[in-house]
């Protein structure tokens, strides 16, 4: 139990390392968009770490960044085409932030610092660790932001073409909440700051 908590919150790439914030701040207006973004990043992270680890002996140190970028962008393009084909609303909702996964620091960071030096299985394990950390962080943040910002929890709406269900929970709708501020980008920054603050307080600060 302690181990799970540690790897989810003490080594979390978003809350502790403060990496990959672009998508965390931009697409989290609904819970659904948040967790699908998390899953997409997880898939790309695992695949890219696997490929990078497989070809680590053929890649020179000098040219490794272009090579990794090509690998990651290929994967992202594949996912992009698949999403466009099978879940158009989600593809539209992500907009520019889907191609921007290419420059997500978590993916490139794991490729550079771990997968390029280790064997395949440890690399996949590492990818799952970081990816699930990111998935938990972005889902949690999206959940908070949607509950406070629009008073709903959207579990399935845009992806209902795939699953066949629509599932939206109404939490509250009074004059205090929902508060539009949290849907705006400024509110996203404030909320993320508070969330990081609370989690760091539980982790015991910087001592």
């Amino acid at each position, binding site marked *: 139990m302690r181990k799970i908590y540690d790897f989810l919150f003490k080594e979390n790439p978003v809350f502790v390392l403060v990496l990959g914030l672009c998508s965390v701040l931009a697409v989290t207006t609904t819970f659904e968009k948040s967790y699908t973004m998390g899953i997409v990043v997880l898939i790309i992270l695992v695949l890219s770490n696997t490929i990078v680890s497989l070809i680590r002996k053929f890649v020179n140190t000098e040219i490794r960044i272009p090579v990794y970028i090509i690998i990651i962008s290929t994967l992202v393009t594949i996912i992009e085409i698949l999403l466009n084909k099978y879940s158009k609303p989600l593809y539209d909702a992500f907009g520019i932030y889907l191609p921007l996964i290419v420059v997500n620091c978590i993916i490139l960071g794991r490729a550079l610092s771990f997968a390029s030096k280790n064997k395949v299985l440890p690399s996949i394990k590492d990818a799952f660790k970081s990816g699930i950390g990111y998935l938990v962080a972005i889902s949690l943040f999206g959940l908070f932001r949607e509950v406070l910002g629009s008073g709903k929890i959207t579990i399935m709406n845009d992806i209902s073409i795939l699953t066949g269900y629509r599932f939206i929970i109404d939490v509250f709708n009074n*004059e*205090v909440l929902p*508060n*539009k*501020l949290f849907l*705006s980008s400024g509110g996203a920054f404030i909320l993320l700051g508070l969330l990081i*603050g609370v989690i760091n307080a539980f982790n015991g600060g910087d001592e």
Partner: protein
Amino acid sequence: MKFKVENGPHVKSEETTSKIMTRFLISLTPIVCFAIFKNCLLNYYYSSVTFIEAIHPMLMIISAVLTSFISELLYFKFILKDTWENSFYEINRSFTIIPGLLLALVLPPNTPIWLVIFGAFISNILGKMLFGGFGQNIFNPALLGYLFISVSYSSLMGSPLNAYEIDTLAGATPLSNLSNLNYYGTYEEVVGSFGTFLNFFVGTIPGTLGETSKMLIIISFIYLIATKTIKWRIPVMYILTAFIMTLIIGHNIELGIWYALFSILSGGLLFGAVFMATDPVTSPITPIGQTFYGISLGILTIVLRFLTPYPEGVMTSILFMNMLVPLFDKIGLYFKENIKKIWILIILFIALIILSVTTISNNIKNLNNENASNPLDNKVKIVKKEKKDNETIYSVTSKAWGIIKADVKVVDGKIENISITDSSGETQWNEIEKNDYINKIIERQDDIDNVDAISGSTYTSDGLKNIVKKIIESELEDEG
């Protein structure tokens, strides 16, 4: 022989923060009294409000001050885990009630109490304590709280008019009245509907709680300067810049000196300049930095007032400039050493003033020329028109905040349905949906001029109303 070793600073002044803040509170006292006199006593005397409604403004001030006090006390006790005695001691040193008091004074008199409490809580905890307490905050805490509640609950903030003012004054505050007139009007239109300049000076015009009485603010300002509590450069340069800019604007659009006087006497300009911009924690310390800080505040306020749909602009510009305080301190230090180079800075700021003044004057002229011809032609355009028997379908675009695109179905000369195809440019669209505004304007299409706009999304409402007006006009042309 014994040596005494101490850390600096070694020069001790009689001016402690406690004395400064006490004087600050003393200077605010007459303003609070006048706010209570104007919004409680006069309101109770002239209109038929109940006792509770009449003392509402007083309750606002009390609840804001109490919330500030209690939230900070609890923060010291439970988050920082001090003892009770220590917490009370810390609170005495951190002047906890000032953000709450200032916040209550910049709010309109009809703001709900819970909103005031929320704002005061945000001011003290988010704006002050989370930054590290008194002396550490980057932004003015009261303004941060104001920003929070005005951004999120603008529709609940309530009108700035008291009950007795609503009966006599058709418009809103002087500044929103000016903004509705497209910044151009005769003396009677702009000033006359609120009385004379004496009313502006004494403070019997609608506005937020603390900002109305310019006379008391000036007296407080003189007291604060005489006791060397605040820095005179910031407010003086701020108001002077605003005055000169509006004077030139007034000259360009052929209005007299009263236009500039009106500009500085209306709204929260004086209050913000004296009590908000001079906050010792969030303003520059170098004299040159202070001077140019004041000038920038003036430019920014006038630009915000005349070029954006928000009629006030003082609070926003102070918050924005708070961010640049370290920069202005650096500028001040640099030019203190290189005083000969200061003409660079002066030319730069004069160029900024000329640029913004010409932009604003041209904008006012364009706005009013548009109105002279048919204003609707510029705002609403019919893209497509399909006729079938007695049914016509129009595709229109209308200029609001952004561009609204809509398909309108007309049967027998009556609008039956408006389906919006694009409203992505509107930031306050959910207010429209919440109020079911589209059905409202369809119902009352014959009487469209008397449909009220939704407060908080006036531009969008006007954009929708213009669509209806344009379609009716076009239908009338077809018949005739």
